């Protein structure tokens, strides 16, 4: 079962990765649910670090992905990757927590497309955790506090460097 799904994701993913040129428009509700669950596996709560839900990884992504500065390539990869993942693993949301984790761990370093997609999600998860809270993540500076980061001042009053 997993082997078959793995191959399916790999082939489908590669096709999408190489051929899809249209810019994906936005994250659908279903994609958002999947991304939120995937993010919890990528960034689980630990004794020292907050979970993706605590630093609002999904909210950050939804809040930034449509800005003109978000690269089209990245936007395509995030959204098309999610579509491809859902097509390959349609029952993902129905799996229990351990099964979900097992699935993600089984593909992350064994499938090039999965590796590319998940590393991009990790990157934007890091942005959500450590960018200024003005962008929707890093709730109450939870990311900065967790790593004892010394904040730089002044903090932004407007997003994307807009003049005051």
């Amino acid at each position, binding site marked *: 079962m997993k082997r078959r799904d793995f191959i399916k994701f790999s082939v489908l993913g590669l096709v999408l990765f190489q051929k899809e040129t249209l810019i994906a428009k936005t994250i659908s509700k279903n994609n958002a649910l999947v991304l939120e669950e995937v993010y919890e596996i990528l960034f689980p709560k630990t004794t020292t*670090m907050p979970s993706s839900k605590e630093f609002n990884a999904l909210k950050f992504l939804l809040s930034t992905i449509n800005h003109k500065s*978000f690269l089209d390539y990245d936007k395509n990869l995030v959204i098309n990757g999610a579509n491809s993942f859902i097509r390959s693993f349609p029952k993902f949301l129905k799996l229990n927590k351990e099964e979900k984790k097992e699935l993600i761990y089984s593909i992350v370093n064994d499938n090039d497309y999965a590796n590319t997609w998940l590393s991009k999600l990790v990157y934007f998860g890091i942005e959500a955790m450590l960018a200024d809270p003005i962008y929707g993540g890093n709730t109450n500076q939870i990311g900065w506090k967790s790593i004892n*980061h*010394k904040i*730089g001042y*002044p903090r932004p009053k407007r997003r994307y*460097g807009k003049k005051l």
Partner: protein
Amino acid sequence: MMYDICVIGSGAGAGPIIYELSKQGHKVCVLEKGDFYKREDFSKDELAVTRRSVYNPKLEDEYHTVEEYINEEWTKFPTYDTGWNFNNGNLVGGSSNFMSGFFYRLKPDDFKLASKYGKIKDSNIVDWPITYEDMEKYYDKVEKIIGVSGEVSDYKYQEPRSSKTFPFKALDEHPITKLIDKASKELNFSIVKTPRAIISEAYKQRSACYYSNYCGSYGCSSGAKGSSREALILPALKTNNLTIITNANVIKLNTNKDKKITSALYLSKQGSKKEVKAKLFILAAQAIESSRLLLNSKDANFPNGVANNSLNVGKNLLSSSGGIVTGTFDESVIPLKELMTPGLFVNRAIKDFYFTKEFKGGMVEMVFEHANPIRRANFFKWDENDSSKLLIGKELQDKLFSSFTKTKTLNMEIFADWSSNDNSFVSVDENYKDKYGIPVANIRIGTLKHDLEVSNFLAKKAVKLLKQMGAKNIQSNIDALPSSNLQAGGCRFGDNPKTSVLNKYCQAHEVKNLFVTDGSFMPSGGSVPFTFTIYANSFRVASYIKNNFNKLVDK
């Protein structure tokens, strides 16, 4: 309106001209491609400043092509594919807003490398048409007007100075300097302290540095950093002789039959074409874009581009190569509280190997990795032992926590001289155009094997020092690739119009009313960042123009 002087660009090469000539009473018009940001507009927003690069145009819209030698042929890559951005800040003050500000002068022998070492095989190294003595008083002027903080170091290659001290006391230093100095003494390395164009005390309208922990890459929120905007343009505005037209993208210089520039044609923010007329034109758009503008300004008088009938424009582009050596520190060698002290400067360099008997060496500058937590964390997502293995889950989270809370990485940046050569140049290609339909600059980045050998020689010194300090996980990443923010050459100055674009005053040999005052003039770059020398040279050119203005604009 006919201005006395039109300046294209507003960074380090433009600022001194703007400052000096507007103060002398000339009507100066600046055409700046970007916007005018005030001090209070800047913040320490890592996402905006370094991840989304908001002070630059979108790469898909305005890119470069880079030519690399791969499989025995030159292959062209548009930078929107690679993400390698050679735009360094479109705003008033240009990239000087974002510099780290370590300000080293060139040394007397940097002006005569060909005489001192001979010509390296396949290089185009030449002596400068001026000497260190010609430049010294302008270096001194920069230290006072731009504001340089520091302590003069006593070492073998310290250059002669007319002022014994820097005008501002040294900035506060990070505790790791104790470890560096101890290890340096043990290795018999000289302790060289880094001067910085960041003022440690309030000066005129500028406040002192407040050690924000976010300096390099960020606009300064106190005015301490000696950007062209803070130190020169804001004071120049008070003369009422200065007009700044922002969001003016200059696309062509128009000439007349006398081979003089009559106007600069630019696109406004709304996309309409406009013109500025002036008696004298100063080009300072940063080296690559300056060559691009000249090459794209083709007309009957200059079919190969303005000032390019000799076919020298764009040639002998310089950058700074070398790469980086890194070492990680933890509480095994320095108390954690001291190690984690934010904001203070390292301000140390290895300069004992700047020259050797056999070859021109270079410098190693020490700096903690920038505070930027997103950038740092992104490195930690890969397994140290298998760089293709993505870390996720608890393993990733634990690594993020321990790396940020228990370690700090010191970078040793290698600065070797970039040897000018036939395969390092700027050209334009009609097949690659920006969103306005203007051919983009193509950058061929050929380097000589010699430069890599010098970099490796310097890297060994850096590794030695890091080992002596007790650093862990020492890694060398040495390469001959250019630093996209360090650009010079392309319009080298010289006495011979057949082999140079500019004369020794940076006036175009072929166009009497054109001066180029960014780093384009430099035949060699020294083993240091170029900004200090660009500022000093621009003051030198400003002095020449001030003394000869009527003669220069005389019909």
